[in-house]
């Protein structure tokens, strides 16, 4: 580390660093738009940009497998799920003036304060720390498979059980009524409520 500290400097960024910085700016911008836009569907689409940007960052950090998982799961399924959710809750298409709630200034204050504190702490802590990206790739599929199924098998299997539980739970929650009652009664009921 000390060797790295002497050979590197803030004013001499490498290509990877420049790429990371640019992608990071795009990611951050997309994230900011996601949380501020007035159009709900646009927010979901900007989230795709942000998550995709993060996938690129993973690639730059040599974690290939995670990057593709990120693309697959987040961009491919989570955002699709969110879009479905927006559709099912009849989110308005176009600008909705009441996308933000009343405590926006307080939220802004908390977020800025937290950001300032954390940035200060993180910069203060890792001012002179460099990541050595050379050598064999640390996150290739092979390596990932090796450590995942060598060291992390048990948590992995437990995770599968968790996923199953979440699946069952989601089905139970989103089912409109009990198995005995026909689905026919639910629909007018839901309409009535609106």
């Amino acid at each position, binding site marked *: 580390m000390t060797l790295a500290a002497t050979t590197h400097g803030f004013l001499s960024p490498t290509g990877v660093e420049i790429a990371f910085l640019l992608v990071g700016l795009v990611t951050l911008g997309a994230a900011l738009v996601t949380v501020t836009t007035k159009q709900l569907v646009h927010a979901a689409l900007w989230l795709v940009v942000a998550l995709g940007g993060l996938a690129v960052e993973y690639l730059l950090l040599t974690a290939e497998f995670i990057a593709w998982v990120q693309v697959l799961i987040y961009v491919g399924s989570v955002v699709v799920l969110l879009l479905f959710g927006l559709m099912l809750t009849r989110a308005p298409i176009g600008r909705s003036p009441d996308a933000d709630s009343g*405590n926006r200034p*307080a*939220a802004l204050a*908390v977020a800025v304060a*937290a950001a300032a504190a954390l940035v200060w702490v993180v910069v203060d802590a890792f001012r002179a720390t460099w990541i050595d990206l050379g050598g064999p790739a640390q996150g290739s599929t092979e390596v990932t498979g090796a450590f995942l199924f060598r060291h992390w098998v048990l948590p992995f299997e437990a995770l599968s059980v968790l996923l199953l539980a979440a699946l069952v739970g989601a089905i139970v929650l989103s089912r409109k009524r009990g198995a005995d009652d026909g689905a026919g009664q639910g629909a007018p009921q839901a309409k009535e409520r609106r």
Partner: protein
Amino acid sequence: MTTTTLAVLVPLLPFLGAAAGLLLGRRAPGFVRPLAILPTLLAAALAVVVAVRQGGGETIDAATQLTPTGSVPIDLALRLDGFAALVAVLVGIVASCVQLYSTGYLRNDPRYPSYAALVSLFTSAMLLVVYSGDLMVLLVGWEIMGICSYFLVGHYWETEAARSASIKAFLVTKLGDVPFLFGLFALAADAGTFRINGILTAAVSGDGLDHPTLIALLLLAGVAGKSAQFPLHTWLPDAMAGPTPVSALIHAATMVAAGVYFIARLLPVFTASAAALIVMAAMAAATMVGSALAAFAQDDIKRVLAYSTVGQLGYMTGALAVGDRGAAVFHLISHGAFKALLFLGAGVVIAAAGTNSLAAMARMSGLARRVPDAFWTMTVALLALAAIPPFAGFFSKEAVLGAAETAALGHGPTGHAAHIPGAAGWIVLVSGLLTALLTAGYAARLWLLAFRGQGTPAPDLGRQPAVMNAVLWVLFVPTAAFGVCVGLLPDWFDGRSLAPTLATSVLGTGLALVGALVTYAVWRHTTALARKIPVGVAAAHPHTEPALTEIEAIETHEAVYGDIGAADDPADPGRLILGPLHRPAAHGFHLDAVYAALFVRPVRAAAELVRFLDREVVDTYVRAAGGAPRLLGAAVRRAQTGNVQTYLGALLAGSVVLAIAAVLLAAGA
């Protein structure tokens, strides 16, 4: 059984009877009457046996200590001398008579079981006071009597008069009991013991007591409350709102005599202080004359007798003030007999006439024929009250007057009586003679108005129960014949002769005759007037319970005549005799009004002040103590919006602050 065991049984039996009566009263109504009468009768018989065994001889003193009680020991002690033995016999006999009488008088009363039990309890307490040889034990009986009196005066608690009278009786006697208690403690501190014989030894020993005057005056206050002496006598006339048998037992024969008996027991303590004797004599004189005047003006037959009781108790106190306790207890016993008889007879008369108002009875002819037993016995008892020879009252009153004369003229016998100040003797003698005149007058007025009324015939309200009349004749015996004991009694008492002396006999009897004759003459004059002016009403409920008639008479008296005790009857001989004094005398010389102005109103004002302070000042703090947290809570509640985002924002802001603080601390360290 030894005499001591018998003496212990005497107070114990009525107590057990009272306890059993209270426990079984509801469940076994059949046992109530035997439980009321038998223990009292047995106690009376045992008291007679004790008196016979004691026989006026050596004082029997027995004591047992249950538990150590600190520096001044309290013993369960008995002290049997001639006084105690004879007074216990009186209490036993009168209590038995009253219990028998009550079975007829309150024959249908739903509260009879508790009434009988309380009378038994009262009897037990009185016997305890009589026999007790320890002042603390005596005090226990003294206070039990007070509370029993409260309950029994308030027996007709449906009536306003009975309620207020019971509270008044209780409070006024308690007012005397507070200094009494202090006096007992001071006495025990000086003498080093609560035992009566120890105190007497200390009182007559060389040094005597340290503060004789203070102790005597403190004790005198309690005695004045209990024995209805001026200025604490006002409760006794009002206590006539209770049932007649209770008036006879408690407010004529026994409880009011307890104060006199107490002084008689501790007479050496009182004679140690000349000032206390003078005060006692003045108190007795004021009581005697004032109550006799008041008795002259009362309309309620029982209130006449009540004021008469106050006056006769004044005689006893006067006898004690001149240092002759033999005469005092002699008068106590004879008065107990004839006054109980008078009250019980008055109960019969009230039941027969349907009213307690003398003004109404004066307009009723033939009342004497309706109740011949009450008429004859009451006639003799009134003669005894007026001290006409040869009845009991004559001898006992002459004994008092003789003692006063002896003290006044200063040629008294040797012994502690030699310290008696002559002034006390003169005060008692003069007021006693004046009272003798007045007593005969109001006795004659009572007799004439009650039994010599003219006008419409008395209503026929049915015959009174035989047991009530029988009791009158039982009490008639001592009333008529107790005087023959005058030669025997000195053996029981201090040995001083109680025989009437010539001078006082002639003077007293002469004055009594004058009083009676003057009243008769005036009555002859006014009775013509009575026919023209109708006054009063009488209840007419034939064959009803006597007590019900009495309740109604008490309830209606104020409504009909405008006062609880007096009546505005122009045909009343007392009105003519007393002249301008009649009005104040009818209202007890407005003493109640004076007390109301002096004590009741300031106390009420103070209570108002305290209420104001409590409501407006103290409660303000309390309300503020409650209101401040409530306001604070309302302020905090505003933060509770139900919006999860607000909560989460506050949570995260807090954690940011904490994190920064932690970092700064770490950096600073």
